[in-house]
């Protein structure tokens, strides 16, 4: 039972998908076989956390006191959540301009992130990074580049360091479909495979870079194939399929951790909001509303919630409670982050050069 899209750049690309949770059950069930209820609830909680964090941003953004360009992750939550479930605090990730989801899934405290978005002294980067450059060494996020493709090289470098030290850390690089057009992507795939580095490449194919559909930019969109030329196994994970992501990410992470080198996962998804800022793209005519509606129907949270309730027999009230608790804690984090003090103006001149503290 396919879904017809009346118009829109990605029409050719979107295959039919059965949203009915009953029918999804068998596939989902197979995928979840290694996951306890607790795992599943963790997964749900992470997705909810990301969603609510960003909905908070949308709520408050028009006040114009959060002065940082926000690239919202809403609609893509399944990926960060599904991948980071398998990572420990010592594992590294690199993110990109669309950073919030990855940072939260990797364990960053929402209030520190809010403080950073507000340019506050207690933000993770003392207010110098903002939304596009979060970092948190304790969570294995050693800096974020908003240059498309930049984070991929940093990730491979993190993995090289881990390898040279014989540490068992894994590095995950998150990046968009647009990043796969930058030459640096291939330079990194080649080297990662050559040295069998413990790195997992996660391509979040949301079908657009800014307003350009992938059909404007690449002759085909099988991004999972891009590593094959270097003997890197590639996988395609269907639209927002959180359990699929979870399963393949686990395999890839375990493989990397065991010394068998990199993998590439293409996770197909869709961003609900504009490339930057809280509006929706159809408002300014960047894409048809019907396309968004279709993908809202594939909301990773809604689908997963249905699965949990109908197939795993998890009580809706428990899920509601998780959501309510999270909403409360996000509100609180926002309150705190927003009310932190600004840095002194002198901070401007700090950290241009590293100074040894001997």
């Amino acid at each position: 039972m396919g879904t017809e899209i009346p118009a829109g750049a990605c029409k050719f690309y979107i295959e039919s998908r059965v949203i009915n949770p009953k029918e999804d059950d068998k596939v989902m069930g197979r995928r979840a076989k290694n996951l306890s209820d607790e795992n599943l609830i963790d997964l749900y909680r992470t997705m909810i956390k990301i969603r609510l964090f960003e909905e908070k941003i949308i709520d408050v953004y028009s006040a114009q006191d959060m002065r940082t360009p926000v690239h919202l992750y809403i609609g893509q939550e399944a990926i960060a959540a599904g991948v980071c479930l398998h990572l420990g605090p010592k594992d590294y990730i690199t993110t990109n301009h669309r950073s919030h989801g990855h940072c939260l899934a990797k364990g960053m405290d929402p209030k520190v992130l809010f403080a950073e978005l507000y340019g506050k002294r207690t933000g993770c980067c003392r207010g110098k990074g903002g939304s596009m450059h979060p970092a948190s060494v304790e969570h294995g996020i050693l800096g974020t580049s908003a240059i498309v493709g930049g984070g991929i090289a940093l990730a491979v470098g993190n993995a090289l360091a881990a390898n040279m030290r014989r540490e068992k850390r894994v590095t995950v690089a998150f990046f968009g479909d647009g990043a796969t057009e930058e030459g640096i992507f291939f330079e990194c795939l080649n080297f990662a495979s050559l040295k069998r580095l413990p790195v997992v490449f996660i391509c979040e194919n949301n079908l657009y870079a800014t307003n350009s559909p992938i059909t404007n930019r690449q002759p085909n969109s099988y991004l999972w194939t891009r590593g094959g030329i270097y003997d890197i196994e590639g996988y395609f994970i269907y639209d927002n399929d959180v359990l699929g992501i979870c399963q393949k990410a686990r395999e890839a992470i375990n493989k990397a951790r065991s010394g068998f080198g990199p993998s590439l996962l293409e996770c197909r998804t869709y961003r609900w909001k504009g490339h930057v800022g809280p509006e929706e793209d159809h408002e300014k005519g960047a894409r048809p509303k019907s396309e968004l509606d279709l993908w809202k129907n594939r909301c990773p949270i809604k689908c997963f919630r249905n699965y949990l309730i109908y197939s795993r027999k998890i009580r809706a009230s428990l899920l509601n409670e998780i959501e309510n608790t999270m909403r409360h804690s996000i509100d609180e984090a926002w309150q705190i982050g927003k009310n932190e003090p600004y840095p002194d103006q002198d901070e401007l001149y700090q950290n241009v050069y590293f100074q040894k503290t001997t």
Partner: protein
Amino acid sequence: MPWTKVFIEKDETNILQSEGLRVLSFRNALKEAQAQILTKYPEAFLMGEGVDDVGGIFGTTLGLVDQFGKERVMDIPLAENGMTGIAIGAAAAGMKPIFIHQRSDFLPMCFDQIVNHAAKLHYMTGGQVHVPLVIRNIIGRGFGSAAQHSQGLHGIFLHIPGIKIIMPSTPYDVKGLLIAAIEDENPILFVEHRWIYDYMGFVPEEMYSIPIGQGIIRRNGKDITIVALSHMVYESMKAAILLEKEGIDVEVIDPRTVKPMDEELIFQSVSKTGRLIVADVACKTGGIGAEVICKMIERNINLFKVPPVRINFPDTPTPSSPVLEDAYYPTVSHLVRAVKSMV
């Protein structure tokens, strides 16, 4: 002259209109220039990430795709170095690409192709081939754009023989200089600033071009010379108005093109005032200010009555926090303070 004047307030341009003169924003002047170029030169085309989309590069290419089609208003993959090389190859074969970057910060991605290829091909081939390539790039200040989305990187191209640098400030100039750039048929870095798109001014409808290498005196004065680039022209004019009230008479020079540079115009002015500020939209050390000041002193060691001053971004990356961003950018009051300390 309406085509030399800088209009800080929109209201001022009402006078122009009442005189029957045509008023356009910097943004629309740029768009008009591109439309006329595409019409006149079949070998010209625009390429860039998102040139054909609803944003239309801050509105500067909006609608052009409907007029000229997707081949000549070409959206491209995210591959700045390769695409620049492709533009160069097309230019070498006789096309006239205008390559557009949403931010100047993306220029480092294609430094290989700009520096080692575009700037050298004419020379290396002994003049057989030349590269009519215009590279539009936009300095994106403000709203937490931070370290990788707000740099002014034009200064480094001063050091690269074979590439010219143009930095228009007014609607009149942006049109005339873009047309001049295309007709010049050299690799040209065409530097814009996001904060000047809304400024208005007189812009004739017909195609015209402005000689590359000619600066202009935006305001005559006898006490001090401010050489101001791009957005700094407006800030300097504002400062001049404030300082006038205090009896200080500021001359504002807009070089318009940085390479070649209208050295003579600046030299004459400083010979008169004995005081020089160079105000640029980029970091201080190793920038355009140093070259201008050095050139002046090479010509006359007794030129200066007081030490020259460079007004720039500080030598740090751009921070994100609004309070730090405020501290980062030099303002009218910096200029006023600097001038006062010099006279």
